[in-house]
């Protein structure tokens, strides 16, 4: 099957680059990587066409693991959902690969970068194309691995090395649950194939599982375990801590992995498992609440950050929260839709910021920027487009998807209403921090060094062209899902996905939909207004506001001290216990104490008792006589 080539081409690129890159290919690595990923893109489009024509492809290639009744194969499923993901992944990858040619030019690890990136694309494609949970898990972990490599790409920086490690380990916490979920899925359904699992999903409703003496609903447990994985990978609360740190990686990596594709894997997975989630209210509500809370939580942090990439990173966390919110209220297609649009505008934001950083020679602090719009018009333009899109200005991609989510939330009963409020509030903040970013970066006066100012320039074509492409996506991607209110049968993406994801429940009135739409547009504008007021009109204001709400500001600026909390409650205690209690005391003192103590005791005995051997003949005779007496006494008189 030709579609197996979709993942294999990047894999090939990886293998060639990693083996020969160092000595032979060197700075020509993109000549292998870009065609490979472009080829994947072309194949993905063809696959999409196939699916559009109604062919769902489910193909088992070979049995991967067979052990007793446990059987799992390596196989691909290309259905509507996968097709969308394929397009997203391959298209954005292709653009970012091209962008990277310029961005990474001259880096010592150029070949390595393309190798890892290719490996990532392979892994991501495996993830979305898997037709069973274990292969999904394979892709899941593999993208994590690539993320680790790429975050730690500049490994000589300690911060980068730490961040890579942190990303992997935090993800492991999620995967811990995910893995258990997969096992539980098999134990419940006797298979890991999507088709079989989802086909039989209804049959296990009402079953319970006993955990530590309490019965829980089986489906809920499965869903929550799987969701654990999603929380980790998609950086939701409380496992979001790794994503901001992941910005230590090169910017294209942030764009591709930590914005457009990998972090959305959790969304994809939950959407993929919708037949299971649909059966558990508890799980759905959990998803929705986690999503909603994360959306606003991350947005609040984003308000005060000064690192350009971190702002976007928190924005990503927040937007991922939106997606989960959508999934949680049953609007799977809305979630995927937002995933799809978000991929473009967020990639655009990152690459734009990459362009800025590139121009400023790796300066990421926005306080040292300002007034760049005259130096970098193209970048500025695409940034504006992306911001309009993310803030949900009508007509741009973000508007359609975000609006759909908020509307679906609004329809979702009392919880839904609350979530809608959260979402809208988050939208206000999104707007604010997005504009704040633009204003701080591009408006006003340049605040950096003269040296930097001297070198300010627009990025080369190889960087700007992909930006333009993405900008097109950020504008038009939304037209795949125009709400019925505005256009009959406009929600083509929803329709397209409905065989996999079904239709969302609940119908609202036009008025309600209008209200939601209007409120979100309103808050978007309000966000712009406030940002403009604070950062353009009155640049002193932010400092004053910060002074005024000092504790609150500090809380936000320090990201609610979550990292510190984890450090104090988990990391340090574990390390301390390992070192002082387990290794230093238990292993060295108790176990080794016994292990060495017994021989030492015997040795002490030996030294003590050899003194009995006095060398005196009479003592020896005494021992003999005493022995004889003891035996006689024992035998004759004791018995």
């Amino acid at each position, binding site marked *: 099957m030709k579609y197996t080539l979709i993942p294999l081409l990047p894999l090939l690129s990886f293998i060639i680059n990693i083996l020969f890159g160092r000595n032979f290919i060197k700075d020509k690595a993109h000549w292998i990587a870009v065609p490979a990923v472009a080829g994947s893109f072309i194949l993905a489009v063809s696959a999409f066409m196939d699916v559009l024509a109604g062919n769902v492809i489910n193909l088992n290639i070979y049995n991967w693991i067979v052990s007793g009744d446990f059987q799992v194969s390596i196989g691909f499923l290309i259905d509507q959902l996968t097709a969308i993901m394929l397009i997203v992944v391959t298209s954005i990858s292709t653009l970012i690969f091209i962008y990277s040619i310029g961005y990474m030019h001259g880096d010592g690890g150029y070949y390595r970068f393309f190798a890892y990136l290719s490996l990532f694309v392979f892994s991501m494609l495996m993830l979305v194309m898997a037709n069973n949970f274990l292969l999904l898990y394979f892709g899941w972990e593999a993208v994590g691995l690539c993320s680790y490599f790429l975050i730690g790409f500049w490994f000589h920086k300690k911060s980068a090395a730490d961040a890579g490690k942190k990303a992997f380990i935090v993800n492991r916490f999620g995967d811990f649950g995910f893995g258990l979920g997969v096992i539980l899925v098999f134990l419940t359904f006797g298979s890991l194939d999507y088709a079989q699992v989802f086909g039989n999903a209804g049959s296990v409703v009402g079953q319970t599982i006993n955990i530590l003496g309490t019965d829980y609903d089986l489906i809920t447990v499965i869903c929550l375990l799987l969701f654990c994985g999603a929380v980790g990978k998609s950086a939701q609360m409380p496992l979001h801590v790794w994503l901001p740190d992941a910005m230590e990686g090169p910017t294209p990596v942030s764009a591709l992995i930590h914005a457009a594709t990998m972090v959305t894997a959790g969304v994809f997975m939950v959407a993929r498992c919708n037949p299971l989630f649909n059966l558990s209210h508890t799980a759905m509500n959990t998803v929705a609440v986690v999503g909603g809370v994360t959306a606003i939580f991350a947005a609040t942090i984003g308000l005060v950050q000064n690192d350009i990439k971190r702002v976007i990173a928190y924005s990503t966390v927040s937007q991922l929260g939106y997606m989960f919110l959508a999934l949680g209220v049953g609007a799977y297609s809305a979630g995927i839709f937002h995933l799809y649009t978000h991929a473009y505008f967020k990639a655009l934001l990152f690459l734009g910021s990459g362009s800025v950083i590139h121009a400023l020679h790796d300066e990421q602090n926005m306080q040292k920027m300002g007034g760049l719009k005259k130096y970098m018009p193209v970048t500025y333009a695409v940034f504006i487009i992306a911001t309009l899109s993310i803030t949900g200005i009508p007509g741009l991609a973000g508007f359609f998807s975000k609006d759909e989510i908020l509307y679906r939330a609004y329809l979702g009963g009392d919880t839904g209403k609350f979530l809608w409020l959260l979402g809208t509030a988050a939208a206000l903040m999104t707007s604010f921090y997005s504009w704040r970013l633009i204003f701080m970066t591009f408006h006003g006066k340049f605040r950096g060094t003269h040296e930097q100012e001297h070198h300010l320039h627009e990025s080369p074509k190889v960087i700007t062209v992909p930006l333009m492409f993405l900008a097109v996506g950020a504008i038009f991607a939304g037209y795949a899902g125009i709400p019925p209110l505005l256009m009959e049968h406009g929600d083509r993406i929803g329709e397209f996905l409905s065989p996999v994801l079904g239709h969302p429940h609940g119908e609202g009135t036009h008025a309600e939909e209008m209200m939601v739409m209007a409120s979100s547009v309103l808050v978007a504008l309000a966000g712009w207004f406030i940002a403009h007021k604070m950062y353009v009109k009155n640049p002193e204001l932010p400092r004053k506001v910060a002074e005024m709400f000092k504790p609150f500001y500090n809380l936000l600026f320090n990201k609610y001290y979550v990292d510190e909390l984890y450090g104090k409650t988990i990391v340090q205690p574990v390390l301390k216990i390992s070192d002082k209690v387990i290794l230093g005391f238990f292993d060295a003192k108790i176990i080794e104490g016994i292990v060495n103590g017994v021989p030492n005791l015997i040795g002490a005995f030996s030294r003590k008792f*050899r003194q009995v*051997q*006095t*060398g*005196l*003949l*009479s003592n020896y*005779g*005494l021992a003999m006589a005493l022995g004889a007496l003891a035996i006689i006494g024992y035998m004759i008189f004791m018995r």
Partner: protein
Amino acid sequence: MVPLSWYIILSAVMFSIGVFGFLARRNLIIVFMSVELMLNSVNISLVAFSHYLQSMRGQILVFFVITVAAAEAAIGLAILIAFYRNNPTIKVDEINLLKG
């Protein structure tokens, strides 16, 4: 008639005295003499048994014991002399070159 047990008790008492001598004395020669006492006590019991059992074996054995005792005395005293040549003492509690 003297009961057999009298002889045997005499023999046991004498044996015990021999043991005491062996364990208590310092002079190697007297220690050796204590061993001879023990042997003689055994001889008494053997002869008594032999007499009361109307069997000759005990007396024969006594004969051999006396022979061996003579040989033993020869060798033992030879060892003692050889020892004394290098270590001028025959005090039991001064002989502890080898110990531990």
